[in-house]
Structure formats: structure tokens, C-alpha cells
């Protein structure tokens, strides 16, 4: 886990993803897209909640501007993580985007019921993935006005 002391000019994203390949790929694509992004990674649901609640080694973790959440995670499932975030008064205002390979209608419906901010399907082709990351950047990190509640330490 590596997180960097925050400067007010950059954006923090929490990527909750267990596959190291996907983590690396996402980092690479974000780096190519926007160099002002700090991508923090939690590799399972429990760690994600610890990061968000600044528990244990995450005491000084920043409050992320955006959460990218995979659904299939070890220890604590992504759906439970989503439910916990949205049930937490402190965390529920953080935009949470589901980013997963699942195209299941059940997962999509359930995620929105759990108040996911949007549901994105990870494309198979690299180029398509790059386009998707650009879209996330353009929309969630550029166009969307996010609440100014930063309590970063």
C-alpha cells in the first residue's frame, strides 16, 4: 500500500481491485490520461473499508475523490463494500463507480439498488479500456462537481 501526502491540486482515487494485472493496467492507463491523479489501491474489501475509515496502517489515508470498485473481491465482497459505504454517513457522498468484468443484469440492478453512482463494464480490448478511463476522467474527475469535504491529513 502506497499513498502519498496530499496536495490540494491533485485528485485521489481508491481502486478496489484484487488482480495485480488489472491494478497495474489501470494505473498505466490513468497515468497516460491524467498525471494529477493519485491512485490508491486496496486489494480486498476489508482493506478498502480500513482505508476509507483510516484504520490501522491507513490512519493517514486521504479521503478519495472517487472510488473504483470491483465486485468480486476476497475477504469482503464488493457488493458488501458498496453497501457499507452507502450506509456510512461519512462515506456515502463519495462517488462510487463499479468497474467490473461482470455483465450480469443481476449485478447491475443490485449495484444501483445499493446506490452505486454508476456501473461500468471492463472492456476486453485495451483500446476500449483506454477510452473508458478517459471517459471516467472527463466526466467524474473533470466535469462533475464533487463536494468539498476534504478531511485529508
Amino acid at each position, binding site marked *: 500500500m502506497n499513498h502519498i501526502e496530499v496536495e490540494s491540486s491533485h485528485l485521489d482515487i481508491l481502486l478496489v481491485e484484487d*488482480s495485480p*494485472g*488489472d491494478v497495474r*493496467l489501470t494505473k*498505466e492507463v490513468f497515468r497516460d490520461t491524467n498525471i494529477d491523479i493519485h491512485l490508491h489501491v486496496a486489494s480486498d474489501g476489508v482493506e478498502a473499508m480500513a482505508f476509507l475509515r483510516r484504520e490501522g496502517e491507513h490512519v493517514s489515508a486521504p479521503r478519495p475523490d472517487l472510488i473504483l470498485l470491483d465486485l468480486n473481491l476476497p475477504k469482503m465482497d464488493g457488493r458488501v463494500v458498496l453497501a457499507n459505504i452507502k450506509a456510512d454517513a461519512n462515506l456515502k457522498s463519495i462517488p462510487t463507480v463499479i468497474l467490473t*468484468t461482470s455483465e450480469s443484469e443481476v449485478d447491475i440492478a443490485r449495484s444501483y439498488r445499493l446506490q452505486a453512482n454508476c456501473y461500468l463494464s*471492463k472492456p*476486453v*480490448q*485495451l*483500446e476500449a*479500456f483506454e477510452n473508458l478511463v478517459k471517459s471516467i476522467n472527463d466526466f467524474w474527475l473533470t466535469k462533475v462537481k464533487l463536494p468539498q469535504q476534504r478531511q485529508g491529513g
Partner: protein
Amino acid sequence: MPLERLYDLVHDPGNASAKVAEAPNSAEEALRDSEEKYRMLLDEIQDYAIFMLDPQGVVVSWNAGAERIKGYQADEIVGHNFSVFFPPEDIKQGMPEELLRITATNGRHEFQGMRVRKDGSRFLASIIFIALRDLAGNLRGFSEISRDLSESKESAAKYRGLLEAAPDAMVVVNQGGEIVLLNVQAEKQFGYRRDELIGQKVKNIIPQGFAERLIADGTRTAAEALAQQIGTGIELNGHRKDGSEFPIEIMLSPLESTEGILVTAAIRDISVRKAVEKHLGQMEGRYRGLLEAAPDAMVVVNEGGDIVLLNVQAEKQFGYHRDELVGQKVKNIIPQGFAERLIADGTRTAAEALAQQIGTGIELNGLRKDGSEFPIEIMLSPLESTEGILVTAAIRDITTRKKTDAHVLELNRSNEELGQFAYVASHDLQEPLRMVASFTELLARRYKGKLDSDADEFISFAVDGARRMQRLIQDLLAYSRVATKGNDLLRTSSEEALRRALMNLRGAIEESSALLTHDPLPTVMADERQLIQVFQNLIGNAIKYQNPGVPRIHISAARNADKKWTFSVKDNGLGIDPQYFEKIFVIFQRLHKRDEFSGTGIGLAICKRIVERHGGTISVESQLGHGSTFTFDLAGSEGKS
């Protein structure tokens, strides 16, 4: 007056008539005298024919009874030979002369015989002949005292009445086998007039088996022999006047009479009964034939659950010999579910209960002699019979079918598993492959020209391979989804589906400047998403496999004989060699090299799978170089859209 008294009167006139006082002077005178005296007496007797003959048999006297019984006036017959009273056949045999000879020898002869009246009709008579001799013992003549047996007593008239009233033919026969009496039914049945039969041998109308029964054998009397027959119907053959035969049943009963034992035979024409029996026999024969010809085991059971009939297939199936099963409970071979169906419960009769079972196969278990069980299907049908309702059960050994069913079930299951497996496998393969493809691509992008030329080439092969594999897996997933992710078939406008397909193909259509036309298309029962895919794949192919020039594609639909809609997608493209017509629908089969046309060979396989899921077929007609027409059919919904 009893016959014996008359005999005395004639034979011993002195004793018989004490009132006659005058003594005769000579034997001749005495005879004449007594003749004179007694004639007056005898003349008045009505019930008996009493007359005298001279030694040659010429009638010399005639009484009132003779006149009444035989029908001759005295002056008509006196002076004629008495042989006129005999039937011609008796005369031929010399019976009249023989009678006189016997009487002359014995002095007296008593017998029963047929007599002929003046009008030719016959009657059975009881006759006593007496030789008349003078005191010197010279034969002076004969007297005959006879009685018509058929009317001899008042009771005879009653008997006759009874006889006529009987519904059967009745024939009374004496121990000599001669018919002495018969009724009108007998006349009708045998086709004779009464007088043609009276006095005839009964053998003439019942050639065999009757007369024999009248004759006493060495060890028993006729009465005893008869007694044994009484009340038992004997089946014989009757013989009509016209020579035809017919089956009869006779019942014998003896009748004690003054003439000895007479036998009354009630004769019933049983042709109809015999015909019915024969018919029934044939029916049973046919039924049995049918039973044996049936491919299934057939068992006929009565309402008590006893087996009454079975065929050879039943013997084979259950491993019993026929004799071991007939009369046994059907429960022995079908332990459960059959016998219960035969028993009527409180609210319905057995027939009703059965009626509900008819034509429906009931699956039960059969039990073989060796104790092994096997699955059977039985079909019941009731059979009205004289013994009540019988149930015919057709029993089919369904061991093989059960095995086949299980096999089919297993096949379906494994097919489904395989489909599921293909889906899961390709889905899960996609993840690691995404890593391989993405990172080789990143590698190619960031390090092209920074390593050596071999590295560039290797990386480009890796990128190409990974991309191809991604396409294959995506196609495989799409193919799996036809079965695993299909939607219900609903009323779908095929024209709208075509429109959506063309929208998806917009890029390719614009690029190729293809000319697309279509007829009005119907509303069909389909999974719309899949129908779009079929159109898209077929039209996509038509655009792709083209000669230089403008692609022309026409889509049409026509109702076929099965009331389904046959869709056609016709193009003017490359065409297909007929030898590949089947191959092109098989998954991953391609006719072109990758550098000629891209693709994995999944499009038509998906089309085939979709059309088959819709209960239709897909095929192609084509000639190399002359375009292709792909046709597929779908079940219609009413009307055209």
C-alpha cells in the same frame, strides 16, 4: 270294452254270450248260427274294427267300428281281400299272406302294425288275428279285431292335444322303432305329412342314434336303457324329406302303454343354436388369433382379478407357462396397481372405473417367475362377456424405453452441462487473456523500435495471436449465449428486426455502397435480439463476400406448406461451392484464408443455432460466382406486419 273280452267273445262265443240259448245242430250250422247271433252284437261296436275273413283273406263281414276306423262301407269291402288295409310295401313283402299263415299255425296272432284307410291315410293299429276252425279242426276263416291306437283312448286325445301344444317336434315311437304318433311341429320340421310318417321307421327321419337307443341290449332292458337317457339332451342329426340334414337335440321319455313301452321324443331343431355356437367359436378363435398376433403381452382378467386368458408374449415376458397362469391371480405377475383398478369403490362401478383407464398407459412393475421385476406399461380395455366384464390388458415391457428415456435425460443433462461449461470456460478464459492481450499491446506501443527487430516481430505475433483468441472466445460466448441466454419467443415484427440489423451494419453498408431491398415482412414468433443477429450475420456475410462491384441484397419472406414463414436473403456475391453447403454452418469452419477475409467462422453457426432454437431450419442455395440465397424458416404469428 277291453280287447281280451272281445277276444273271448269271438273265440268262445258259447261262454261269452250265455243268453244265446239255442243249441246248434251241426258244427257248420252252429257256426253260422253264432255268426248270425253275434254279428248283431258286434256290428254295434264302434271302437273296434271287427270283421271276418275267409281262409283266403277275403272280407266276409264288417262292423260299424270297421266302417268308422277304416272308412269303407260294408258293401264296398265285403268280397275284397283284406290286403287292401296294408301299406303297399307290406303287401310287396307278402305280409298279409304271412299273417294268415302265422295265425293259422298259432291260432292267434297279436301285433301292432300300420293300416291304410280307404282315403289312403295311415294309422297305427293294435291288431288281434284269430283263426276260426270248425269242430273238426278245419280252418274256416279268420277274425280280426283291431283298434286305432292313435285314438284308442280318451286320454290319447288329451295326449295328442298336449303333443300338439308342445313347442318342439314330438314323435312317439314304439319299440320296433316305428313312429306311432307325431305333432304338427314334427311335420314341419321334417317336411313330411303326418300320414307319410305314421308307421314309418324313425330311422327315416333320425338316421342314427335314436333307434339304437330303443333296443335293449343283452344286459339291460329297453326300459333301463331308456331310463338312462331320460332328461338328457342327445344331439343328433335330423333328416328331412328333401334329403337335407339339420342338427337336432332330442329328449326321450318312456310312456307305459297297453302296447308296451312307447318312447316320446321331443325333437328340437338346434341349427340356430349350433350356428350361434359356431359363430361364437369363430369369434373366440378370431379374438384368440388377435390376441396371439398382438406384439404386446396380453392378459385377460375377470373382475375377481383371475387370469382367464393370455397370449404367448405374456408367457415369454413373465417366464411362466400358460397353464401356470390361467386361473391365477393377476397380482402374481403385476403385484401393484392393476388388481386395485378392477375393484369398484363405493361411488363408481368397475366399468366406470375402467372407462377412465381406457387408452391411458399406466406404468407399473411386472414380476417374472424368477422373481425379477421389470417396468411395464399397461393399457386396459373392458370386454363384455357372458362371465361379466373381462378386462383385456395389453402389457408392454418398457425396460428398453426406460433405459432410452434415462439415456436421453442423461444426454440432455450432459449437453446442457457442456453448454454451460463452454460458457463458463470461455468467460473465465477471457480474464487472463485480457491481461495477455493488454500488456502485449502496451509492450508493442511503448517499446516498438527500442528493442531489436526480432523483438518487434515477436511482440506483433503475440499481439495478433492474443487478439484472435479474444475474438474466438467472444464468438464462442455468443454461440453459447444462443442457448443459455435466449429470451422467450414472442410476437416479433421481422421487418423491425431487419431495420435494427441494418442499423447495426450501417458502417459496412455505407462503405460497400450495397443496395438493399426487401419485401414486406411478417410478424413471427421469435426472440427479437436473436432474429436481429440472424439478419445481421447473413447480410453482413452478403456484404463481406463480394465481387468487385455493387452488392445487391434482397430480403423476402413467403408462407410455406407448414404455415411457417420462409425468409430468404439473396445476394449477388461470390457464391459457394455446393460441396461446402453443410460445412459453412459448422462452428469455426471457414472457406477463406484469413488474409482474404477476416472472421472466425462463427456467424453462420450462430444463425443455425438460433434458427433451430426457433424450431426451424437454415440452408443455402448457391453456385460459385453466381451469388447465394440463404433461407430459414420461423413459425408465424397471425397476419403480416
